[in-house]
């Protein structure tokens, strides 16, 4: 066990955990931020996507010991009042079915829009290809990303 000071959603949080604990479980079990979802545990589904210094990463495969002082953003910290253009667009387009993968989809899309504010259909398909939606809401996700791009 070891102590880690983590910069999560703009606040410093201290945890005492095994250094190999993935950020996914640090967030869910220790910080009690459960918006980041467990889907596969091996970086294959994208449900656990968070930002590390603005880069979209799969938190199931990021040991806490490798994070250092990088800033971590989770779905709970993507915007102050749930009003990030993507969050608004997701509601407006009525994207979710079961909803389980959507936080990961939004986090991945947010990193995309940071780099590419007006992505083409092809850009979206490529950037989002690692985020599985088992309900098959892909066409709505694409529409919501475009809607958000127009909003911002």
């Amino acid at each position: 066990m070891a102590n880690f000071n983590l910069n999560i959603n703009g606040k410093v949080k201290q945890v005492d955990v095994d250094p190999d604990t993935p950020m996914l479980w640090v967030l869910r079990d220790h910080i009690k931020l459960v918006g980041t979802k467990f889907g596969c545990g091996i970086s294959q589904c994208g449900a656990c996507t968070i930002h590390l210094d603005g880069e979209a990463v799969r938190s199931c495969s990021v040991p806490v010991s490798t994070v250092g002082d990088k800033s971590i953003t989770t779905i709970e910290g993507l915007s102050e009042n749930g009003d990030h253009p993507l969050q608004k667009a997701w509601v407006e387009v009525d994207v979710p079915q079961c909803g389980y993968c959507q936080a990961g989809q939004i986090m991945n899309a947010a990193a995309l829009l940071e780099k590419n504010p007006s992505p083409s259909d092809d850009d979206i398909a490529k950037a989002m290809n690692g985020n599985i939606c088992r309900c098959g809401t892909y066409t709505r996700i694409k529409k919501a990303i475009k809607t958000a791009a127009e909003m911002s």
Partner: protein
Amino acid sequence: MKASALGGGGMMIGFSWLASCKPGEQAADIPKEWFNVNAFLKIEKNGLVTIMSPNPEIGQNVKTAMPMIVAEELDVDWKNVIVEQAGLNTVDYTRQLAGGSQSIRQGWQSLRMAGATARRMLLEAAAKQLEVPVEELTTDSGVIKHTSGKTVGYGEVASVAATMVIPEEIELKDPKDFKIIGTDVGNVDAPKIVNGEPLFGLDIDKEGMLIAMIQHPPSFGMKLKSLDASKAKAMPGIKDVITINTNVPEGAEEQWSDVNAFNELVVVVGNTTWEVMKAKKALNITWDQDTKLESSIDHEVALSDLMNKKPEEATRKDGNPTSAFKNAAKVVERTYSAPFLAHNPMEPMNFYANVTADKAELEGPIQTPEYLRKTVAVVLGLPEDKIDIMMTRMGGGFGRRLYGHFGTEAAVISQKINAPVKLVYTREDDMTQGTYRPAYKVKYRAALDKNNKLTGFHVRGAGVHGSPVFANRFPAGTVDNYLAEDHRLDSNISTGAWRAPRSNFMAGIEQAFLDEVAEAAGKDPIDFRLELFDRAINDPVGEKNDYDAARYAGVLKLVKEKANWGADTPGVHRGVSAYYCHNSYVAQVVDMVMENDKPIVKKVWCAVDCGIVINTSNARNQIEGGLIDGIGHTMYSAMTFKDGQPDQRNFDNYRLIKHAEAPLEIETFFVDNGIDPTGLGEPGLPPISGAVMNAMAKATGKRLYNQPFVNEALVLG
């Protein structure tokens, strides 16, 4: 305060004066006191309405749609409605189950009655308060109006309304007056979903709660021999390692939750998920062979043998099929196969349980809470009324969560360790546990006479634990000489209902086969099908035909018109398909293009007849998702086995459809016929693989027979 039954709807109304509710973002302020008008809804003094959603929410969006139906008849403004998930309550609700696309169809009448009854009681209360005849009152979005111009809000008379005699007969709205039904209403949980708020079973966190994980045998046909848990037990955060057995006592009535290949399990219990995951890997377990260790090649051989074997009895026989084939000018024969599939909802199996000496509290994602309770009662030895089950929003299910063995496991673990516990499956635990869509093989034969008329049709199906064939579905009823035959292959690999059971395979292959028959007959595929439906409408063969031929033809005609079928666009290859299941009719046209030698689904046109559409946005969403699900599993997914052991354990080698493989555009049209609503969660899936196979044949010149097609075709991109 008593419950009584209403004639006609079968709804139970319970009067009580509960005073709790959760706040939400609403137009009116949240009150301190609520008036429970009946089990479905509560009305507050200022008119804010809470409507309970009785059925489990699995992504089919009943948590929005069911309360919409109540709100419609109650006649309130949707922005003043708060929706809450009801727990298992078999006194006030019936059929709290997510399955068979039946929630709306079977809830339709009682939900309408609930809203209309409350509205009527509010009117009676207002009449009393205003001292006017009730006939002089009308309602308008939560306001009661008198002919004199006086108005009174629902909230102002709610407390009086709750004391009114429950009316025995209620007039329901004319569907043409619907204001909420038939509109786009956003998913009520969407704000929480996009903000990452706790909603799902896996998000449950309670005081003193421990985490448990199971280890089941690595192969079907294996069982536990010995366990050495000394290393795992010594690891940080680990409380205990135990074994459990969830077998139901002999003689108990069989329930959904009893479907389980592995009842004897090793369980690791600890403080946090990661600690338990690590300790699980440190278990030293030896396994023994119990029954045969099956491989996919064994299933393939056995199913192929059955294709050449005539069963002792036909499931359905019309006319004289033998003579029809003997006298045929042309015979088309094709055999199709499909592998086992895992359900793979994105949220792995999990359940919370807190079992004490005399009661059990369970909470989690379950499609069949009523039946989970029955199993838990017999396994724990507790009466059913001492077991509470709360349903969480489910991170998908697709049939997987009909089989709630994980709920029973959580309860048994909690009882054994005497602590509240959340059971968590890893993806691997879930994918290798069983309850799969069975592997199938089906042979079709069609006989055409010299005038290219379909004179004989023969379908022979075989599948693990049962044949997929529906003997009384189309084209039964459209052809004079018809034969349906079924074979069953036994296995120790457990199988279960997977979104649109059997239809998920039968629809696509039937529609692909008919496409080839139409081709052999030299007919347009839609015209060919419509001719068959004409026969079923005007002079049906047999009496047991399980479809309405006019509605079936209706969706085909609608999709033909909307897609402008027949107007050839260079470079666009089209395939059509139509199917009936879960009481609804869906026809689809796929527009496929080739880009860089890869087939791409450019657009899917859908025509749907599911009767009255409750929520138009979600209805489209279900059709869109269903067809993407259907394309994905036909193209890419398979579970295979070697010596009883699944070859696929996680998404690195179990392929699901991804963003780039989804259709670029989907357009859905609903038949507006005012018929009572029918299923929508499943019917969008089955036909699509047929439309894709038919378009693929045009685009690539190749017909596909063995799923997943990724093994033998150009991959959709």
